[in-house]
Each structure stands twice: as structure tokens, then as C-alpha cells.
């Protein structure tokens, strides 16, 4: 008995064969991992399953019967719900309104019964570990709670299939566990779950079976427990297993040669900001990658932003190459040679509606112009250099950045930063949400850049990436430095121990 099934589905877009004869089967009560690099066809397959796309050929079967969804609503009515990577609810409406939008309980007059709606919302959300006032605006809740509301909503509409597209990408570890608890309950109720994630640990913790796609083709499908991690990764990448094993999980080469006696290129002293940062100090020498470790909310992004002049500080100083930055501002920071890659690429980084060329040129326009007139030739030269250097895959400098894959968008952002010829590069989650191949490329780039003498500060939630990429790790918790890992102690175990040692309890005050 199958819940949802696609058989021999193909889907093409101009110039791309996104899905090529792919079959996929979901059984009741199964948590099915769907993995592959970006561009492997995962998103397209999900969109076929949820009625956003109609396949060119092949069949979609629901409970064994062929179906055709004309629109996402048809799929929803058939009991197929989707939780998207970015929470897709209405931030300005209340929690209860979001939960019930379109299905509000009515009174005898056919009007919405607010009292009942709020009561029921409280009851439902309690099951998901959300105990906030349901009349609050959804947007004021932490992201994890918002995700739970989205999930509760999806399950509420008698879903038999729940598709989760990277549901944990913005969750804290504790919230991930709550999510897993919910998934297990759904599993027990016979609901089928399609789980898309880049995080290996999660896949092995929660999923029963796995389907691996690569370049729009089905590579493997079967029980996840029968598959070694290294096999999974090599099938996703299409590399030889021995090669993957030799290379480890990340593309970082190892330590960089730094001159311990060299003066630091970046010195941060006593950064303090209201309740978020407390007396944070550390140094970065030229050619060194310093990792900032810690859980979500530990103050890593705030520290990065503060150094870049984009976060209000009550106290603390930033020195670049021995020069003290008076009254930090983003303009001063850029002028001093600090380049920041923000965590949220889409909102704070790239300009999706501009071309690759214009995106790269944005930050260097002042340098590329004389008397306010921009020199096109100079810009073209810079753009061409960085597109080659960073191996940006685009049809040309004029392609819109919004049309590129996540990995290439990230490279465009890096190109923009590098074009300003920075001395210090601050990277906040440089590989989040990009596919495995691009991830490896970005990681080697970080290595190369450090090799050329740049000071790099790296923030990553991926412990392996942080540890393998950094020469030293500064461990943060609740906005304060709680440990330094150096030399042989830069390992995931020591990082976890550092974070855990600093966290005797989960309570916040």
C-alpha cells in the first residue's frame, strides 16, 4: 500500500532536464529522506508532488490511483502539505489566525468564532511545545516557534503526507528535538513524511528510507540504515568513495601557515552591546581563520555585525592593522578593509534583480569612478577576474543573480567582498543552504584566501566545517567568550565540550 507515488516522471525547463525518469514511493508512517545537491531535482520533484508543476511525462499516484493536481490547493485538499524552508505564514497576523486561516471555526451566524479559535489554537499548539499567547503577532515569535505553527497548520488539514523542505535550517538544537518529537508522533499516526535536509546527523536520526537524486536522475532508493554515511555522500556527489573518504567531509585542507609573531590584522577588544554581547575580545592574524563557535543566539552573528559596524555597541574597540576604528559604522569598516558576508544572503547580501556584474561592482563603484563617472572598462575587468577566480557558473556577467543557484549567489557575494580588497573577511554561515559541491568550492576558496594572507573570521553551525576550516575557535555562549580551542584541541568533540561546559543548564534568565 503506497500513500504517494511518482512513476517515471520527467520534467524539462528550457535548457535543463530537471527530472529524468524519476520514481519515488512514500508509504504510510514512513519518514523518507530526499537528498541530493542543489540542482539534483529535489525541488522540482517536491513541486511535482505538491501540484506546483505538472510533469511532462510519467504518473503521479495517490493511494494507488493516478491523480493530476492543477494547483497547490488541489494537492492540499488531497492531504499533501508542505512546510517550506522559509516559514510561509503571515507575520503580521496572530498565531491563531495563521493556524486557522481559511478554516476558521464559525458561530451560528456563520461569523468567525474568535474565542473558540483561540482556545483550539492553544490546545493544538501545546502539543507542539508552543505555549505562547496565540493572540500575539506571529512575526514576534522565535523562528522555531513559527516553524512549529507552520507544521501544526500543515498537520491540521488532515494531512496524510507532509513534505518538509529543510525544516531545521533555522532551528536551535532544542527546537530540532521538539520537531523530531512531532515527526515521531506523525509517524506513529501513519502519516508519510518526505524530509529534505543537508544535515547528515538529522537524516540518520529521524529517517527510515532515503532517495538520492543527482542531475535529475534517481541514483538510489532504499533503507537509510543500510547505507553508510560515506556511501550516501559519495552517491550524492557522484565521486568515488575512496576519494570522499580521503578528503573527509569538508574541502578544507587543514591548518594555514601563520606567523605567530605577526601583529594581528584584526583586534577586537571588549565588545559589549546591551544584553546581547558581553566583553568579547579576540585577535586574528594575517592568514589565519578564526572560527566563532556556539549555539544559535550565542552572539556569533552579532559579533560579526558589530565588527562590521552594523550593530550598536555600548563599549569595545575594533582595530584593523593596528589602526583604531573610531565610532564604528559600515562605511568606516569597509574603508578600513573589513568585508562582511551576512548570514541572510537573500535579505542582506545579493540584489536578486541585478546582474552578476552589477552585484559584484556594487561595493567598488566609488573606486571605479572618476568625478562620479563610473568606468565600465575597469568594472568589466574586475568582474571578469572574479567570475573566473571564484568559478562563478552563470551564462555571463549579465545574468540576473536571482536566477543563479544558491552556491553561485554566495560566490557572487564573495566576489563583491573581495573586489573591495579587504584585509579581514567576516563570513557568517558561508555555506548555509548551498549544495554539497558548491559547499566544497566555497570551503576551498576560504582556504585559498587565508593562504593569501587575509584574516578570516568564520561562523558556521556545521561543527565539522567550523573545526576543519578554522585554525583556532573562539567559543561563545550567551554573548560572552567561554573558551578558546587551539592546536590539537580544534576538534568537534572539544567544541561540543566547550559549549556544553559553558551550558550547565538550558535555562535562560
Amino acid at each position: 500500500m503506497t500513500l504517494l507515488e511518482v512513476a517515471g516522471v520527467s520534467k524539462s525547463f528550457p535548457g535543463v532536464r530537471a527530472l529524468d525518469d524519476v520514481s519515488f514511493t512514500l508509504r504510510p508512517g514512513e519518514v523518507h529522506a530526499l537528498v541530493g545537491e542543489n540542482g539534483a531535482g529535489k525541488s522540482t520533484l517536491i513541486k511535482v508532488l505538491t501540484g506546483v508543476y505538472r510533469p511532462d511525462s510519467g504518473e503521479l499516484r495517490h493511494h494507488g490511483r493516478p491523480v493530476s493536481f492543477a494547483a497547490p490547493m488541489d494537492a492540499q485538499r488531497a492531504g499533501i502539505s508542505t512546510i517550506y524552508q522559509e516559514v510561509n505564514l503571515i507575520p503580521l497576523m496572530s498565531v491563531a489566525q495563521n493556524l486557522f486561516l481559511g478554516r476558521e471555526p464559525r458561530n451560528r451566524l456563520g461569523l468567525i468564532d474568535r474565542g473558540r479559535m483561540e482556545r483550539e489554537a492553544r490546545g493544538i499548539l501545546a502539543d507542539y511545545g508552543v505555549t505562547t499567547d496565540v493572540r500575539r503577532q506571529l512575526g514576534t515569535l522565535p523562528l522555531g516557534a513559527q516553524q512549529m505553527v507552520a507544521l501544526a497548520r500543515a498537520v491540521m488539514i488532515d494531512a496524510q503526507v507532509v513534505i518538509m523542505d529543510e525544516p531545521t535550517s533555522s532551528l536551535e538544537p532544542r527546537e530540532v528535538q521538539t520537531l523530531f518529537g512531532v515527526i515521531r508522533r506523525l509517524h506513529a499516526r501513519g502519516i508519510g513524511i518526505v524530509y529534505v535536509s543537508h544535515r547528515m546527523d538529522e537524516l540518520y536520526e529521524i529517517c527510515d528510507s532515503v532517495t538520492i537524486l543527482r542531475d535529475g536522475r534517481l541514483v538510489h532508493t532504499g533503507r537509510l540504515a543500510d547505507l553508510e554515511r560515506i556511501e550516501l555522500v559519495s552517491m550524492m556527489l557522484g565521486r568515488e568513495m575512496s576519494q570522499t573518504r580521503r578528503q573527509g567531509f569538508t574541502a578544507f585542507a587543514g591548518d594555514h601557515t601563520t606567523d605567530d609573531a605577526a601583529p594581528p590584522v584584526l583586534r577586537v577588544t571588549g565588545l559589549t552591546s546591551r544584553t546581547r554581547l558581553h566583553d568579547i575580545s579576540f585577535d586574528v592574524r594575517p592568514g589565519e581563520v578564526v572560527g566563532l563557535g556556539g549555539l544559535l543566539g550565542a552572539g556569533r552573528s552579532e559579533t560579526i555585525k558589530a565588527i562590521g559596524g552594523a550593530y550598536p555597541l555600548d563599549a569595545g574597540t575594533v582595530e584593523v592593522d593596528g589602526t583604531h576604528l573610531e565610532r564604528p559604522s559600515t562605511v568606516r569598516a569597509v574603508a578600513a578593509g573589513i568585508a562582511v558576508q551576512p548570514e541572510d544572503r537573500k535579505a542582506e547580501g545579493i540584489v536578486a534583480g541585478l546582474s552578476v556584474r552589477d552585484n559584484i561592482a556594487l561595493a567598488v563603484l566609488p573606486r571605479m569612478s572618476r568625478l562620479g563617472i563610473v568606468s565600465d572598462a575597469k568594472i568589466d575587468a574586475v568582474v571578469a577576474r572574479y567570475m573566473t577566480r571564484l568559478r562563478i557558473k552563470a551564462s555571463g556577467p549579465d545574468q540576473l543573480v536571482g536566477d543563479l543557484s544558491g552556491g553561485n549567489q554566495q560566490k557572487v557575494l564573495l566576489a563583491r567582498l573581495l573586489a573591495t580588497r579587504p584585509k579581514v573577511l567576516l563570513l557568517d554561515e558561508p555555506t548555509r543552504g548551498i549544495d554539497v559541491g558548491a559547499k566544497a568550492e566555497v570551503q576551498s576558496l576560504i582556504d585559498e584566501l587565508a593562504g593569501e594572507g587575509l584574516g578570516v573570521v568564520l561562523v558556521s553551525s556545521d561543527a565539522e566545517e567550523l573545526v576543519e576550516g578554522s585554525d583556532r575557535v573562539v567559543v561563545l555562549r550567551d554573548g560572552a567568550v567561554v573558551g578558546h580551542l587551539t592546536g590539537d584541541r580544534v576538534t568537534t568533540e572539544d567544541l561540543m565540550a566547550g559549549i556544553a561546559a559553558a551550558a550547565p543548564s538550558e535555562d535562560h534568565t
Partner: protein
Amino acid sequence: MTPALLTGSPTTAPADNGGSERTDRIVGLVQRQGALAVLVTVVLVALVAFPDFRSLDNTGTILVAAAPPMLIALGMTLVIITGGIDLSVGSLYVLGGVLAAWASRYGLVAALFVPLLVCGAIGLVNGVLIAYTRMAPFIVTLAALLGARGLMRAISDEGSTTYVVENDAFGRLGTGSLLGVGYQVWLAVALVLIGMLVLARTGFGQSVYAIGGSEDASALMGVAVRRTKILVYVCSGLLAGLAGAVNAARLGSGVTVLGAGMELDAIAAVVIGGTLLTGGAGSIAGTVAGVLLLGVIQNMINQVGDLNSNWQQVISGTFLAVVVVAQTVLNRLRRIS
């Protein structure tokens, strides 16, 4: 009656975000009731400063004058909450008045039905274009503004023909009163109450807020985005036409020169009332306060004999700027907390 969209009161909230929830609540309260508080203050000042302001007659004058703008602002509130804008309502108001006066020779029903039909149809065209072609509401309704103005000029021979209301029953709609309060005030009150009920307690109302909050998310959540948008612009067109007809009934003729810029007054009243110009949040109660505030200011300036009435525009503009700045500050406060 105000929809509890911007509130948050702590009942079962975890202790660690009690502070931010309190800020949320206060910010929400100011956003929703700010216009009302200012209105009350201004009225109190007026009561003390202007002896004539106190008279019942004057109150009646203010309310009667505020009724047509109220109807227009009611429709505009719906449009702005969806994140749109309707620039055509000023022209539709004038067109509705001229049509009503012209049609009054065919009886009461025609005098009401013709402006509603024409203005509703133009609203429908606006809505369909905005919903299906995803053209910017600003452009679509600007086109409708020009089109409706042209239509009105054509009917009135460049404004040289003034149609006089030729139906007594229709005329009484504009001049008669119940319990000392003009009919058009009762009409505005009734429609405002219906509007509040629809916005807060029907699926359509929820859809209006949802679309303004996030159109893409609304579509994914199964909200009938297109239908809701079309309905909103139809409502706006109908209300503008109705406001024009009511005004024609009061004046006894279709006046072709008044009404230019009414759309901007309506937008100002809606925004002063706390509705976000970016959509997704707002209330009709706030709009009522906004309309009355502008009306009271006008009235006060009229009472200061030697003050040019154009100062009303200056003061309204200042209010608008203050409100927009206050909204920005309040939103930032909320985000930081």
C-alpha cells in the same frame, strides 16, 4: 470591534520574553488607538477654545461633512490593508455625483443604481487588472482616475452642464434626518459597522489581512488571492460612487469641480488611523478616527475667521508626517525588543 491583530497579552508566555510581549502590547495599542487619542485631545481643545464648536449644530455639520469622506476611506482601508492603493476614488466620487444627479430624473432607484453600477464596474476593471495581470495598483488606478475624470467631463460637457437633482425622494436622502442626525451619517455608521464585522469576523476579512501580510504565503495557504483583491477594489469603487451620490443628494446637483484630491485625503485618513501603507495591518476604527480628525481640524480652522482654510491642508499634512514617523519608530521599537 477592532481586530486583535497587533496585540499580545501575556497569559501563558514564558517568563523570558514577558518584556518584549509587554512592548508589543503597548506598541500595538498606540498603533491602533493613537489616532483616537489625538482626536479626543483635539476635540477637548476645540471645546475649550471655540464656543461655537460646542453647539449641536456644529457637531451635525462636522458629521454630515465627514460622511462622504468616511465612505471613501472605508473602501480605501480595505484596499490599503491588502497592500494596494486606489487613486481612482476621487474621480469616481465626482462621477458618481454627476451620474446620480443626471439619473435622478428617472427616479430614486436609478439615481442610486446608475452611479453604483458605473463606479462598481470601474472598480471591477481595476480589481481584475490588478489581480490577473499583477500590474501595480498605483498605475491601474491612476489610469482609472484619468478615465473616470474624462467620462465625467464628457457627460457634463466639460463641466458646463450641471445636472440638478430632479427627484424629491432622492433629494431627501441628502437633506433629511433621523433623530436629528442626517441620513448620510446613519448610512456611514451602518456601513462602517458592517465593514468592521466583515473585516474581523469573516473569511473575506481574514483574506484581506493575509494578502497584505504576504501575498505569496497567502496563495500557498489557500487564500483566494485574486477574488479577494477584485472584491476589495469593487467595494472601493462602489463606496466612492455611493459617496458621490449621497453628496449630490445633499447639494441638489452633481457638482463637477469638487472632489479632486479626495483620494489623497482618504489615504491620509487611513494612514493617520494606523493602517500600514505597506499592508497587512490596520483597522476601520482607526480610519473613522482619522476621518473625524481631519474633519474636526477643518472645522476648527473655519471657525478661526481670519485664517485661510488652506491651512487645513498644511495641518493635515503635518499630522500625516508625524503619524508615519511614529509608525516607523514604533515598528523599530518592536523589532528591537
